[in-house]
């Protein structure tokens, strides 16, 4: 599992991705960790297959008892099917996930972890003195779906928005936006169902000050590439399968 620090200030954002031992047929995913003084938040911690390498990687940065929070942007297996294992490993942690998905996510096993449901209009995660905003991104692609925005680090963890389907071992950052577009097109057109939801999300996100947009698959966008992505996405017709 490769680890890349994407923000370093009074606290850190670390990206975990490109696990060389990942089974070939499962989709590659990016996991993110926000590490403050005494706490640690795992964002979209991944599927069952990824649990062991992910926890082993996090142990380089935080002891088990300081892994206090998990966030699941939505209910997909590549996002959070590892929940039952975290539930055994972290008996005092909280899971922040859409309220709408609670009854579904509990199928993965959630006996000891506290499920903190995120209402449709969003909310915050307070991690020591760091306040992370939960931005609604419903229907992009899941019907109850959230992004995480850090106003201090100016990072938007955008879940499946901005995702690209690429071969394993791909670079961590977008280096040529125009070339990258083709790796994102089908994913956004086919997985994202609603042009209306897309427009609402773009309006909301354009009001945020973003240096880094970090999706759950593919590469991270930095600087001007964030704006380029929003413009490209705005012009794209989605929901093409009907």
């Amino acid at each position, binding site marked *: 599992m490769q680890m890349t620090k994407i923000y370093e200030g009074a606290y850190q954002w670390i990206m975990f991705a490109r696990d060389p031992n990942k089974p070939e047929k499962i989709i590659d995913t990016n996991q993110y960790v926000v590490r403050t003084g005494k706490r640690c938040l795992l964002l979209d911690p991944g599927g069952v297959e990824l649990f*062991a390498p992910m*926890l082993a990687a996090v142990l*380089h940065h935080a002891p088990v008892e300081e892994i206090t929070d998990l966030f699941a942007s939505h209910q997909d297996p590549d996002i959070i099917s590892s929940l*039952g294992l975290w539930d055994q*490993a*972290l008996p005092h942690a909280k899971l922040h996930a859409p309220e709408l998905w609670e009854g579904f996510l509990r199928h993965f096993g959630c006996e000891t972890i506290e499920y903190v449901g995120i209402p449709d209009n969003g909310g915050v995660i307070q991690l020591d003195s760091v306040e992370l905003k939960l931005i609604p991104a419903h229907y992009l692609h899941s019907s109850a779906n959230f992004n995480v925005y850090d106003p201090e680090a100016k990072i938007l963890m955008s879940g499946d928005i901005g995702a690209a389907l690429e071969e394993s071992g791909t670079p961590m950052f977008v280096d040529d936006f125009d070339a990258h577009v083709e790796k994102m097109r089908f994913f956004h057109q086919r997985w994202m169902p609603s042009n209306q939801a897309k427009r609402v999300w773009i309006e909301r996100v354009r009001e945020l000050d973003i240096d880094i947009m970090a999706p759950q698959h593919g590469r991270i966008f930095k600087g001007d590439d964030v704006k380029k992505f929003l413009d490209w996405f705005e012009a794209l017709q989605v929901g093409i399968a009907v």
Partner: protein
Amino acid sequence: MNNSQTKSQFVAVASIAAELSAVMDVAKEISLAAANAKAIAFRAGEKAKGFQPITDFINELAKETIELVNDINEHALLLYQLTVNEYRTASAYNKLQEVNTLAVEARYSETLHPSLQHASEQNLECRKHFNQHVSLLLDQLGEVMHPARAARVIAANSRIEASQAGEYLQSLQAVAESVDHAAQIIHEKVQKCRSALNVINLSEAA
């Protein structure tokens, strides 16, 4: 608990639930046969006098079997839940061992040990509960055999009483046959449940 044990345990618990559902259907058939026999015996009057108390016995046996199967079903459901818990704790323990190997050079690798210990204890606790409930279930299955055996004796008596019922002979004999057949089926199904539980015990011993 390895993968093959897990699979055989899930299959065994599911088979027990399926067999119990069949036992319940048969017990309901006996209850219906008792009601039918009562009606025939009533119509036959003096000719089926000896048959009348037998119908009450048949009905009681059916009720007793249904109650026992209801209790056993609750147990089988609990056994399924315990199997799920055991599977989850065993998977967690195996995965945490994997983490332990992968994180050997990690700065905080030692902080994993309480979680490993906890997962191991949880797994042993689940196994202990599971074994206790398998024993209880075996006892309950033994109890279901008693009304089934009694039903066969009653079926034999019914044949004798039916032979004195004149024109009602065939109807009452059919009732006796139906009770006997149902009792045999219950016996077979309960034996299958016991075999399924033995599979779990054998895989545990292995």
